[in-house]
């Protein structure tokens, strides 16, 4: 018994051995099990969006058309590079604003979540490992608390028009909402219209990208 009360024994057995065993079971083994899922970089995501012409790509083009002045100024043309840049900027501010403190990004297979967070026949799948295996989910953005709804299928739920108005003033689209307003994602253009700025375009692109991979065929086609 005496040995169990000595510094070296405690440090080696409790401090290192037990800790390493637990880490092996808790995450090293899961990472090993998931190792064959390809890890995507932002540039891969961007190339995929363009190649498959997903709803996120269509929404990006919509932003470029409607806010052409700001888009030209901050992102240039619609191409894979500018889309990747917008995703990165959007992700960075999504994290920085603590959006993930109130919005989860995970649809669980229980509690009717597939019914609530998907559109029947378009996207009603449970969250699966490969959709998170990319640079924008490192660290993962599952979140631990919902005040607002889950966002991992957001592209299938609201359109970009709604997102712009909602980000500027949530109560304009969702009466009774207690989400903060985010006016610093907008600026005034030459005519005095309130339009998204660099960060705003990024954030809108990022939000409309969430779940866009689940929408097949593209949204315009589905809605007609």
């Amino acid at each position, binding site marked *: 018994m005496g040995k169990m009360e000595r510094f070296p024994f405690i440090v080696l057995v409790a401090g290192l051995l037990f800790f390493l065993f637990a880490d092996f079971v808790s995450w090293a083994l899961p990472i090993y099990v998931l190792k064959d899922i390809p890890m995507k970089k932002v540039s891969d995501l961007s190339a995929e969006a363009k190649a498959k012409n997903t709803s996120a790509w269509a929404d990006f083009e919509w932003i470029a058309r409607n806010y052409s002045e700001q888009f030209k100024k901050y992102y240039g043309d619609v191409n894979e590079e500018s889309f990747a840049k917008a995703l990165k900027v959007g992700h960075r501010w999504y994290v920085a604003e603590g959006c993930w403190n109130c919005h989860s990004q995970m649809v669980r297979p229980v509690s009717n979540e597939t019914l609530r967070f998907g559109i029947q026949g378009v996207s009603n799948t449970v969250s699966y490992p490969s959709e998170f295996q990319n640079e924008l989910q*490192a660290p993962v*953005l599952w979140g*631990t608390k919902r005040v607002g709804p889950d966002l991992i299928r957001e592209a299938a739920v609201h359109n970009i028009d709604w997102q712009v108005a909602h980000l500027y003033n949530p109560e304009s689209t969702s009466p009774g909402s207690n989400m903060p307003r985010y006016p610093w994602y907008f600026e005034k253009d030459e005519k005095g219209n309130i339009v998204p700025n660099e960060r705003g375009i990024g954030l809108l692109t990022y939000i409309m990208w969430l779940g866009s991979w689940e929408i097949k065929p593209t949204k315009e086609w589905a809605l007609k």
Partner: protein
Amino acid sequence: MATNVATAGGEAQLTNLVNYTLVKLHVAMGLIFFIIVGLMGFLYSLQLDGIYPFPGIEFLSAGRVRMIHTAGAAYGFLVNMFTGLLYWAVPRFTGYKVFNEKYLGGFMFIGLQAAVLITVVAILFLGMADNVEWGETPWWLDPIIVAWLLLHGIQFGAPILKASQKAPLYVTGWYISAMLVWTPLVVFMGNFIPRFWSAGSGAGAVQSTFIHDLVGLYVTPVAWGLMYYFVPVIMKKPMWSHGLSLLGFWGLAFFYPLNGVHHFLWSPIPMFAQYSAVFATVAIEFAVTSVLINFMMTLRGSAEVLKYNVPLRYMYTGAIFYWITCFQCAFHVTLTFQKVIHFTDWVTGHAHLIMFGTFGMWVLGMAEYVWPRLFGKETMYSKGMSEGAYWLLTIGVIAMFVDLTAAGLVQGFDWIGLNPWIDSVNFSKPFWYFRSVAGIMMLTGLFMYAMNFYKTAVAGKGLEAQLRESA
């Protein structure tokens, strides 16, 4: 073991062992940060109520304030408080000074405050946060925090190692020794592996392990270690059972690190990891119960002390909250309960009961025991403020816990019922209003407590203990 200092004239030796300035500085900063993060939490709760006082101001955006609330509670409040109390307890139970008081101690103090302030500036003003819960510090600051923790390991490891070479360590020593190894590893793991060496579900598994390990392998061992030191010292009698102490420690050391993945049940993490986490979590509640039995049996025959001794009362109140939290956890960790309560305010209530109700109460009790002694006084300035703060904090945290638990059930069942989302917000509003009121109670208690601290520090001579209070 400090048998050499327990003899006559020991008090003078003990005084020289402890660097009072470092204890004072860390405890005072910890208390200041406790109030600040409490205010931040209160501000965030006003956002939920829909009456946020600073709408549309970027650097006071509620989402950013919320990250200061959590990261500040970890690094500003708990690390400061614990470090201060370790400066008091470690030399006294080992009989040796810490590694280096003047240079390393001073550097560590300044380094910690700088790290917290940089975090605040980065999150509020620069928009640089890290989406790891409890690791919201920007990632480029994390190597500095790991380095700080390694220094912290040397500072407190040195006296423990010296004492261990002479005789077996006291319980406190086991917890602190293991914690000194665990903490840098945990912080490194949680902040770097999800960012640079994994993504998605793998990162989620690491992050959940990190969230739990920072609580389980830093906060809990330090807190229990200090409890095993302060409770027998205040009651002037040994712990009831040495065997149960061993059981509690090794139970914690083995099962706690396995618990993490229970934060992401029903997630895309492979199920074997989720099942093992549930199993380990239920198992650890037995270890927790053994520790609680040990403390309650130690109290047996001395329960009257709780009536007069506020620090001890803080500690036992916290211990009971700890057991409630763990008992609750054994149930809500199951996949069945998770269907309803995951993502709801139930979890928030649980987190507040453990962090404020248990660890907050413990450090407040310990600090209240240490503080007058640091200034050569026998009691706190005002017994009334002491009592007032205790009751405000206790009732406040119970109210918040019950309220958020109920809110969680309402939200969970409302979401399952597929009602419009805004319904769950509207149904939660009364609970959120009440939570803010509970927050005001807790903050008032904290202000009262801090005022008492200030008055004790600046009071002239004459704060002498009544015979009864020194029991």
